[in-house]
């Protein structure tokens, strides 16, 4: 089987991109329990980085700084990534600048909100 595998080897950068796509897909299953839309379509993820060495950095916000569920959402981000990548380190940084606004919601998210 291995001898017949003609797929060219991926570069480190390509692997990182693939991992980021997978991680983004994982995060698109993390729901904001109140708004009932996933955090990717809500536009809550500001930055997503994977260093290729098992460390993921997520910079994200919340729809309101007063959100009483913030810890639960952050825990959900970390745990859902660790479900697939058990030995990864996930750093989540909550930021409120720039302040989240409606323009950050994706088209799919707007449809879900009935906007």
């Amino acid at each position, binding site marked *: 089987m291995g001898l017949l595998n003609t797929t060219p080897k991926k570069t480190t950068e390509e692997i990182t991109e693939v991992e980021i796509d997978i991680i983004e897909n994982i995060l698109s299953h993390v729901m904001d329990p109140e*708004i009932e839309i996933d955090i990717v379509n809500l536009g809550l993820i500001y930055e997503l980085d994977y260093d290729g060495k098992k460390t993921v950095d997520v910079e994200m916000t919340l*729809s309101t700084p*007063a959100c009483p569920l913030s810890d*639960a959402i952050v825990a959900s981000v970390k745990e859902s990534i660790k479900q697939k990548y058990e030995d990864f380190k996930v750093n989540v940084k909550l930021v409120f600048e720039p302040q989240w606004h*409606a323009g950050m919601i994706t088209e799919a998210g707007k449809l879900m909100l*009935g906007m």
Partner: protein
Amino acid sequence: MNGLQTANAPSSKIVVPHFIAGGISFLVVALLLALSTPELVGTYYDNKLIAITHIAILGWASMMVFGALYQLIPVVYETSLYSEKLGQVTFWLFAISILALSYSFWVASFTNLLIYSSILMFFSLLLFIINLHLTYRKTKKPNIQSKFINTGIYWLAATELLGTLIALNFKYNFLTDIHLHYLKIHAHLGLVGWFLLLIIGAASILIPMFMISHKLNEKKLSYAYYFINIGLLALSLDWLFLQSKIGVYIYWLIIGVGILFFLSYVKDAYTGRLRRKLDVGLKYTVISVIVLIVPLITALYLLLTNDTTPFISRLGTFYGFSIIFGVISMLIFGQTYKTLPFIIWLDRYQNYVGKYKTPLPRELYSEKLADYQYYGYLIAVFLLSIGILIKQSIILQTGSILLIIVALLNFINILLMVLHKTKVEELPKYK
């Protein structure tokens, strides 16, 4: 705000008993109202009506508000509650005081049991006030919402102090004016000072948060804060020491302008909201805010009229009814559906999030029952209002039976939430 308030969240052991006791109290209020329909069209200071009012205000509304406040404090004050233990002691002392106080009104034991139960109530509320005040002192950056809530707590202290003095006066007779005069001040300190400020403080956080509204003009809230407090302070001092004829109109206007600033703030949140579809909790909330206009107009009519007809007396009852059932209870029902599911959800599922598929907070109660309860409550309040105003017992009886059904539906949904058992499913596998 730092967005990490869950770490400051109180244990559900302190919050949940308040919601259960509140649900039971509303059921008791509905049953007693059904038994007291003749008193509803009599004088508003009837001892049974006063008993029901105190169960509604203390057992139902304040109990629910205390529970919600313990949960909301970390969000508004950005710090944890000063003492959870003190909160637990307060709960039991408060519950016993409500039973004793309401019973003493119901059996008209004004010179005996009422004295002791009022003193007990005074101390239980004092513990609550101390706990919240010490929590407020821990907050680093007081905001307009925390100012509303904290000032509301001072008004609660004033309300309770006057209430205890009225109770003591039944036996020792040291106050210079008639009881009804002080009862009027006591009621306004409680309804405007405690509840209205609290409602504005809590609603101005929760409404934009749940409707997803941004960039609201908080200056409107500041104006509302100063207008309402100055108006109420002037009104109380005037009633206590001057009893001027013209002053009350000016104070009514000042308080009214304050309320209009708040309504304008809510209107901005409503029109600028991202969440177009309102769930049952938000529907109650919007209606309760609109209904605020009803007691405001009724108060003006009562001020302008010199009549002492039975209709005017019933209008006085309707005035109190519209505040307690049209505004306060409406908002509490709404906010119960917006807070209790999250409190229970956090308690049951915060260790499972991300690892398993968890239900959504709204799936912890029956949405169908909540809808029936919502429409039933609107009809019940409408029927009881009409019944009081036109003195029609069949309408009052129908309304009060409907209110019992509403109270049962409310209690069933509270039980569904607090008795919810953790249920999780495996997450889909990512490839």
